[in-house]
């Protein structure tokens, strides 16, 4: 992919955002190529949203260099924003206006002619599967519909880069899948996506490449599969012995698998062959209440890198 794309559209080097003494983002560097789908994965408070706001040219960086589409946000904030689509973490749709009006008004902020905005609004309502809701009040929409409207609004200026801050947080599984489908389409059309998430499955579904962020710094970078390969084993055996016994049992199975993580409610045994590990546990005379063999995920990568689970 890198061979075919000459210049990255986002370049961040040692990006820092400090609020008084607290460094929300502490020396983050990454590059995003045109057409790439890039993720910032990390728990709440990792500095993802702050990074997004700096990339979105609405938050001045404390230090480091940042270039969006070849422009510096300090000098060309409005110009950069004219080429971005932004889906913030909390919907800020205008509840005083109707669904279609939200798009009409928003398009004008980009200086687009009314007729063009009107045409584009109808296309986007179609894309967001909201055509029959065009005249509804925003508050009458479901959470998933509001998100889709926010995405439609972010696309009104036909942006080069779409920034999505936790796009599916708070949505039910069905609404998430509809949204993912829409984002896939955008990706296919060549829109560059930069998204933050604390959902592993979302990152695996949507991101070509991602960085794992924790406490304002990048812990690892790579494609999802590559990160899993690098930081975890092929399979994971999850066993539960009950809250009281987990710690005690952990001592007895210490040597099993490549690595063991003891969580409050379960023990994870990382191995190339989960079933084989389960057999060894049972042979050792232990009887787990439940057991599950699954493939490693980004959750395991995160656990390995930070010693913590993503959603605490």
């Amino acid at each position: 992919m890198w061979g075919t794309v000459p210049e990255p559209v986002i370049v961040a080097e040692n990006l820092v955002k400090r609020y008084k003494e607290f460094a929300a983002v502490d020396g983050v560097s990454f590059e995003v190529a045109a057409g790439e789908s890039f993720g910032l994965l990390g728990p709440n408070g990792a500095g993802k949203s702050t990074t997004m706001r700096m990339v979105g040219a609405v938050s001045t960086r404390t230090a480091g260099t940042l270039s969006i589409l070849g422009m510096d946000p300090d000098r060309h904030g409005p110009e950069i924003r004219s080429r971005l689509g932004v889906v913030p973490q909390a919907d800020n749709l205008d509840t005083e206006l109707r669904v279609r009006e939200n798009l009409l008004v928003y398009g004008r902020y980009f200086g687009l002619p009314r007729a063009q905005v009107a045409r584009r609004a109808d296309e986007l309502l179609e894309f967001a599967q909201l055509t029959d809701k065009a005249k509804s009040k925003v508050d009458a929409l479901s959470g998933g519909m509001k998100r889709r409207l926010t995405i439609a609004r972010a696309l009104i200026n036909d942006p080069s880069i779409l920034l999505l801050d936790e796009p599916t947080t708070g949505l039910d599984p069905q609404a998430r899948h509809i949204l993912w489908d829409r984002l896939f389409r955008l990706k296919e059309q060549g829109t560059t996506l930069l998204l933050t998430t604390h959902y592993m499955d979302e990152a695996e579904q949507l991101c070509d490449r991602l960085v794992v962020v924790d406490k304002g710094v990048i812990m690892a970078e790579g494609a999802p599969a590559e990160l899993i390969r690098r930081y975890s084993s092929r399979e994971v055996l999850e066993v539960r012995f009950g809250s009281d016994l987990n710690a005690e049992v952990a001592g007895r199975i210490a040597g099993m698998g490549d690595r063991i993580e003891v969580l409050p409610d379960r023990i994870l045994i990382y191995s190339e062959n989960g079933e084989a590990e389960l057999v060894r546990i049972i042979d050792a005379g232990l009887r787990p209440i439940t057991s599950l063999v699954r493939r490693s995920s980004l959750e395991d990568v995160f656990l390995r890198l930070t010693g913590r689970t993503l959603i605490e």
Partner: protein
Amino acid sequence: MSTLETAADDAIRATRRVRRWGSWYVAEHRFRVMRSYAQTVVVTAIGNPVIYLYAMGVGLATLVDANLGPDAVAGVSYLAFVAPALLASAAITVASEEFTYPIMLGFKWNPVFYGMNAAPIEPGQIINGIVISVTARMLVTCGIYYAFMLVFGAVPSPAGFLAVFAALLTGLGFGAVLMAYTATLTEDTGQLAMVMRFVILPMTLFSGTFFPLSVLPGWLQWIGWISPLWHGTQLSRVFAYGAEEPIWLSALHVLYLAALLGLGWTWARRVAARRLNR
């Protein structure tokens, strides 16, 4: 030139419009929102002058004029005396609505300002857009008010229409400061209600609205001197019936109100820039 440089150049060219007209796009948004409560705007714009001019200018005036004669106050009828003051108060009423709740809304309750700022709109343009839209609504309200003043026969001077602009300046001067103060509020724990009760109401009562400031004891007259409404009311009277005062005092009214407007506007722009850049 690389593709990225070309793209950057295109973006810079395309954004010139927004850099120039962004404030108007924000005003456009406000007008669209106002449409959703257009009925209230129209009903108050027509209802207020009718009620107030009738109650004060006809009702109360009958009593005043009966006791003090047709040149009851400051050489004119009570109706002519009170009408320009009511006009200025009407502008203050619009200011107290439009410079408060839409600001709280945009920053906090339904944070549309953040959405505008995520588009190419700059924080200062958001404030400008608010000022533009409120000016328009105030102009309509004061224009209608003035028309009713004419109907009631409350405007002796041919230059009376200038009172509309005096009222406008009053509303904007006071409103700009109110807007800036509101912009600093991260939470409305009753501050705005306090402003209505302890700033706007006393200001209306003690700014020479219903009786000349000179009637008050000296130790209360300072309220008038710092009150934008008093300055606006006096200016409005100069135009409406040629109230006599030194020319420097009239100039002072204009300067004072313009200074408040400039101060509040600049302050609000700064607060907006600080709040939106998190």
